[in-house]
Each structure stands twice: as C-alpha cells, then as structure tokens.
C-alpha cells in the first residue's frame, strides 16, 4: 500500500509537470522561432540600409541574396558564410558591393562561441567596421603583412585571423567574382525588369521594412502553427 501510494504521487506530479510544460512549449515556440527570423532581418537591414526586397539565388557553392532598393536597382549581395574560429564556428553575414573588385558594404556576426571578453569582441562593430571598403589585398592583419589594414583584436589573434582570412577568400572566390562580373555587364534596369524581384509588401502606407517583417512573421507563424493543428 505504501509503495503504491508513492508510485501514484510521483506519477501525478510528473503528469502535472509534463502537461504544464507542453502547454508552455506550444505557447512560446512560435515566438522563439520568430525571434530568430527577426534578428536576421534586422541584421540584414543594418548591413544594407536601403534594402527593400531581395531574391535568393544559389550558385554552385554559395547561397546568395541579391538586394534591391526601392527603385529596383541592385545595391548589394548578401552572403552567409562561416569560418572556424577559436572556440567553434563563427557564422557571419556579409554585404558585398555588386562591382569588381569586390568590396564589403557591411558585416555582422550571427553566432560564435569565442571567449567572452577576448574573442567575443569579434561581434563588435569596432572590429568589424575595419573591413568595410577595403580591396581583398588589404584584408590581412597588419602584423602579418605590410599591405594589411586590419588591426587584430587584443588577445584574440586566432579569431581575428580566422575571420579576416575567410573574408579575403570569399572576396577572391572565383565563382562569386564571375557571377558579379556578369551582373555588372547586364544593363541594370533591363536586368531588374527581367527578373522581377518578389515584392513582399502590399500595404504602401507602412514603411516597407516593417511590412517585410510583418509578412515574414505571419508566414512563419502559419508554418509553425499549422502542423500542430
């Protein structure tokens, strides 16, 4: 009788906790997913400020996003890439000018596992802004090469070197260079008419960025909620 009592009480407590947690999970999960999407959209906007809409293209090795402003002219290419840092992979998002030689418009770090206080400074704009508007040959650490124009993060040479090398490699990437060269040969207007980028916004009154965000949110929520119903 005593054992049975014990089993029953433990079982009831576990049931209660499982039920309340699954309720919580269903409530919070869409928001957690949404946070991820929102964060990325916000970062994209920070990298290429005048971006209004974009088209996803996949090359052989890379996935890129072509970004257009409100007049439908191509203003930048977004590339998501990662490199092996000191503590683990560093994922970053970089905006590149659509002309040869390739130059960087803006760069943000999406995720990293570097040491807080040292390598973690890799995500700070103070370090990342150094990469903007440099030709690939200049993307070397100052202490490694006379041509280099990048100051390493104090105490985190491995991290700084990893991201600098990875960016240089990306800008010198043959496939990407060929693709962007082909873009600049084609007449810009002609090109944009041909492709017709997906216009995401429908409501003209709202600022279009928030409209994009809202659209993303609703589609995401629908996707998330539907399978559960």
């Amino acid at each position, binding site marked *: 009788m*005593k054992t049975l*009592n*014990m089993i029953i*009480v*433990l079982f009831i*407590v*576990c049931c209660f*906790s499982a039920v*309340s*947690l699954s309720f*919580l*999970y269903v409530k*919070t999960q869409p*928001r*957690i997913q949404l*946070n*991820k999407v929102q*964060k990325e959209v916000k970062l994209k906007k920070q990298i290429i400020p005048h971006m209004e809409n974009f088209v996803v293209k996949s090359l052989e090795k890379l996935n890129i996003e072509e970004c257009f402003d409100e007049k439908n002219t191509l203003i930048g290419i977004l590339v998501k890439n990662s490199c092996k840092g000191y503590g683990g992979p560093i994922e970053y998002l970089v905006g590149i000018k659509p002309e040869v030689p390739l130059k960087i418009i803006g760069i943000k770090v999406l995720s990293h596992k570097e*040491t*807080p*206080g*040292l390598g973690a400074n890799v995500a700070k704009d103070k370090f990342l802004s150094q990469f903007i508007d440099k030709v690939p040959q200049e993307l070397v650490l100052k202490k490694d090469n006379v041509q280099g124009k990048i100051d390493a993060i*104090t*105490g985190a040479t491995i991290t700084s070197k990893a991201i600098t090398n990875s960016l240089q490699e990306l800008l010198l990437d043959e496939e990407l260079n060929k693709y962007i060269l082909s873009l600049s040969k084609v007449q810009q207007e002609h090109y944009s008419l041909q492709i017709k980028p997906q216009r995401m916004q429908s409501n003209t009154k709202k600022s279009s960025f928030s409209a994009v965000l809202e659209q993303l949110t609703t589609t995401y929520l629908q996707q998330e909620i539907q399978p559960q119903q």
Partner: protein
Amino acid sequence: MRKIFEIILRGILKENPVLIMMIGLCPFLACSTTANDAVGMGLAATFVLTCSNILISLIRRIIPHNIRIPIFIVVIATFTTIVDYTIKAYFPTLSESLGVFIPLIVVNCIILARAEAFASKNNIFYSFVDGISMGGGFFLAIVILGIIRELLGSGTIFGSKELFSYPAVIMVLPPGGFLAAGVVITITKYIENKLIKKTKIISNLPSSCEGCSLKSTCMEFLKNK
C-alpha cells in the same frame, strides 16, 4: 511578525547562500561577467526558488517521505524549464549570454537545500518569504560581483558608455571571476567578524555540506560505515 523579519535577515545577511554558506557558486562566478547578466541570473534563480518553495510547501503533507527528493527535483526542473523557455522567447539576448547556466539552475544547491530544509516544514507564507529572502541574498551577491567585474573588466556599468579606456580585460575572464569572488568573500567575512563578535571558525569541508540537501545522506552513510 518577528519571525518574518528573522527569515529576511537570515536569507540576505546571516546565512547568505553564496557569500556565507558557499553554495550555488557556479552561476555566481559564471554569470557575473556583466551586471545585466547578473541581474538576469539573479532574478531567474529567485523566481525558481520562490515558486518551488511555495509549491512544495503547498503539497508537503501529501508527499511520502521516502520519495520527497525526486518530487522536489521534478518540481524544480519544471519551474526551471518555464524560466528557460520564457527567457528564450522574450529576452533572446539574455538567453544567448547565459547559455547553459539557465537549465543548470535545476542543480543549484540553494534551491534543493531550501526545499528540504525549510519549505517542506513550514507553511506557504513563511516559505514564500524564505524564497524571496534567500533569492534576494543570491541576487545581491551576484549583482555586486557583476558590477565589480563589469566596471573593472570592460569599464562600463549596466552596459553604459565606456567610463575609462584600457580596462583590465582579465576581470571578465575566468581568473578575474575567481579573484573578484575571493576578495568579495574575504571582505564579507571581515565585516561578519566585526559585526558578530563571536568568530565562528569554519572548517574546510563541512561548511559546504551545511546547506547541502544531501548532508543527511552523507551522515547516515558515514555512520553505517
């Protein structure tokens, strides 16, 4: 009324879980690199502690004595998961910086110790006050350490502008955490010695057992041996 006052005083000063009892050290050191993280961790742990105290006190009469520890663990783990998902959903940046330490609240000895030593023996109201005051003691300690480390290590307070250039980066790194904690603990002990005339001599091993919920188990084991 007097008992309430006593409970509050005990949680925050006399038996401060971190600075005097030396339990819950992992989050104390790991989540105090910035004052904001420290506040987040302090609040999260206080929430779990208070809620589990209330619930355990509520069901203390129906819990069979032999399986009380597993039930405490289930209750604490439930509240920890609630905090984990809520922070993930509403404070994504905080969840990134605290990382694995939010789920680890579940093994924070403070919470299990209070459940065993206090909540399972007292009524709901006293348990609630005890949760708040013990949590408050933890909160106070971790925020003090967080402010010190952030100020010295990054030259900011609560993520403000840099107050001075060239901060001592070592303070936000692991060695700085140990160093700052050592200094804070020494100062606390100095004040304690001054305030309370009779100096308690804390021997090395048993003081970490004092608040530990498994102390009775260990004692039993030693006796049988």
